[in-house]
């Protein structure tokens, strides 16, 4: 099998898996006062420190969660509620148009249920957020903005965003910036303090850790109303018995990923470049989406004119190649990607896209498999696309 869907989830690093298994054999609830509890607590706090060190944060700023979706929900809703409680006029959210659904749908929920007003930050044709638009909307609405949210790197097209610049502009207006850095950590340098962001989302399973554990890095002075109430384990912002083995494995993965990032980016970037070159040769009219330069090293995202992404996915899957259309499903039905639509693509181009993402286990042999299978798949998908176009 050729696995080119590391942005969906990437295999656990052996070290993380070993750390998980070893810790899972240990007993203890990190909230208990007795010896096994203290032991578990120590594992958690060591992990917190390792993650903080790797991400340029203070240990107290790392709040463990059940993953990226929870961290994004917590940041978006929690910061909104806290800011509005402190200053009732602050009910506006500035959000980029290309956020992951964990952010996007949380923002839309606040707009629908909580009276939030939303300014969507546009992106250019390469998926880059428009810094001037942020400046303009802050100039216009600065006093009523609760917070802004802008992802560090896009999970679909791989465009890396000018986060520090965005954070600086927000800071000048006293507006906290949340950034979803899930795809960025392990692929590009991420430094929380240096970025000027107020909150940052990271998750385990995109960088070699386990699924179901992540963190919200939340600046010390940032108020955040909890979503989950209970034991108040995590700074009273997040409750729930901590997943000690998950957290230890997560910290192990973050540490390795960040330490080895430069070498990883060079190696994976080279394989990715071979993939882009190969795809262009195999299908000359394929369009590379996203920023060709400021791009995650593991991401290659194309539109194949005349094809439906779904059809290509099915055909490649049948050849043992796992990739993704990159866009979310509703009831299993592919929707045109909101990211590509925000980039100005029309519906057809948005539906004709396919995402290949590489990771620490990727090889050139996998690239060869894709390049070999692609021409026939594209030809068939085009025929299917033509059938559909003719009948609708």
């Amino acid at each position, binding site marked *: 099998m050729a696995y080119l869907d590391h942005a969906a989830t990437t295999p656990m690093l052996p070290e993380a898996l070993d750390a998980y298994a070893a810790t899972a054999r240990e007993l203890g609830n990190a909230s208990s006062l007795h010896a096994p509890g203290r032991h578990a607590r120590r594992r958690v706090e060591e992990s917190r420190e390792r993650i903080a060190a790797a991400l340029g944060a203070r240990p107290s700023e790392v709040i463990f969660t059940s993953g990226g979706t929870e961290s994004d929900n917590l940041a978006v809703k929690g910061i909104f509620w806290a800011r509005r409680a402190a200053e009732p006029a602050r009910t506006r959210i500035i959000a980029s148009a290309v956020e992951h659904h964990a952010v996007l749908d949380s923002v839309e929920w606040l707009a629908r249920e909580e009276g939030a007003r939303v300014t969507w930050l546009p992106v250019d044709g390469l998926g880059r957020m428009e810094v001037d638009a942020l400046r303009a909307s802050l100039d216009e609405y600065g006093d009523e903005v609760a917070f802004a949210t802008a992802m560090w790197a896009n999970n679909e097209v791989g465009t890396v965003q000018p986060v520090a610049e965005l954070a600086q502009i927000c800071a000048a207006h006293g507006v906290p910036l949340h950034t979803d850095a899930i795809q960025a950590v392990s692929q590009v340098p991420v430094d929380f303090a240096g970025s000027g962001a107020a909150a940052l989302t990271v998750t385990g399973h995109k960088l070699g850790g386990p699924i179901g554990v992540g963190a919200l890095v939340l600046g010390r002075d940032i108020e955040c109303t909890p979503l989950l109430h209970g034991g108040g384990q995590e700074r009273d912002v997040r409750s729930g018995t901590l997943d000690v083995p998950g957290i230890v494995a997560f910290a192990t993965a973050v540490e390795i990923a960040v330490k080895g990032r430069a070498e990883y980016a060079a190696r994976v970037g080279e394989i990715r470049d071979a993939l882009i070159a190969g795809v262009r040769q195999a299908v000359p009219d394929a369009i590379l989406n996203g920023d060709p330069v400021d791009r995650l090293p593991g991401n290659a995202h194309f539109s194949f004119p005349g094809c439906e992404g*779904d*059809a290509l996915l*099915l*055909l490649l*899957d*049948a050849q043992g190649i796992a990739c993704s259309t990159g866009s979310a*499903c*509703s*009831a*299993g*039905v*592919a929707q045109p990607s909101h990211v590509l639509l925000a980039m100005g693509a029309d519906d057809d181009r948005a539906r004709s896209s396919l995402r290949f993402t590489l990771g620490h286990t990727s090889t050139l042999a996998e690239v060869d498999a894709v390049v070999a299978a692609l021409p026939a798949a594209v030809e*068939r*998908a085009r*025929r*299917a696309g*033509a*059938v*559909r176009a003719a*009948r*609708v």
Partner: protein
Amino acid sequence: MSGGVDSAVAAARAAEAGYDVTGVHLALSRNPQTYRSGARGCCTLEDARDARRAADVIGIPFYVWDMADRFHADVVDDFVAEYAAGRTPNPCLRCNEKIKFAAVLDRALALGFDAVVTGHHARLGADGLLRRSVDLGKDQSYVLAVLTREQLAHSIFPLGDSTKAQVREEAARRDLAVAEKPDSHDICFIADGDTRGFLHSRLGGTPGDIVDATTGEVVGTHEGAYAYTVGQRRGLDLRRPAADGKPRYVLSITPVTNTVTVGPAEALEVDRVHGERPVWTAGEVPSSEIDCEVQLRAHGEPVRAGVRVDSDRLVAELHRPVRGIAAGQAVVAYRPDPAGDIVLGSATITTAERAGAPA
């Protein structure tokens, strides 16, 4: 794979027979929650999940294909338009004709597949002839009779030699969780089975007269002629009993005047049926009248008839009169056969009349 037991077992049998099978669930609703919300039907998220589970157990890839726009245009809108025109459509038949063995088949062929496999209860052998299922109670050849030879050449119906009970047993044996799932009976896009309410929401209510055919008198009013079906007796709510004291049935619906005509049961009897757009499923267009059987509604009793082609139309002369034949339904011609009655062809009923002397 609808999420029901039949398509699950059909897929399993096809895979076991050595075909390279991919499971496909059709998303037919633009908004899955708005259609049926119970356990049955074709469009819920739960059904999609059941179908996916079955595919996983069988060990085949599984995809959801979005056919919602096509389904709306070709089946749902057609259904409403047919009722509005005073006819009684069969949406399952239309779905087979336009979606499952057209849109889905075309896409599948383009993608490199060879055939569409479904869980319909009908037989289709090497001779290319479509036959009734061995399980006459579950036979679905009627709703497949619109398929052309070309469509049938790319169709596989693995269940035709089994009874429904055998299919359920086999599903249980194969650990398919849908083994006990109840059959779906009514129209999948009408959530609560309330066809009249559905039509009312689409077509609104336009009051009109109910007229007695024997006297020409107005005997009642209605809220929209489309809500009536030829042969219907209940729900007429007539103001006065008929002069002859006999119960009244709907004889015809005239959309232009928004009139429902009623009369006694005998007036429903017809023995000549005309159909348009005939499809000759078994191949050749009959050059002379053929002695065969016809079925005039889903689950209807077959009736002996002489069937002929008359300038692109099908005409069936029934050997005995039958009641309540509605325009819009299909007339399907069968040749009785010990190996399963053979579907010769079908057409959409336009009119029916009493040609011979009244019985």
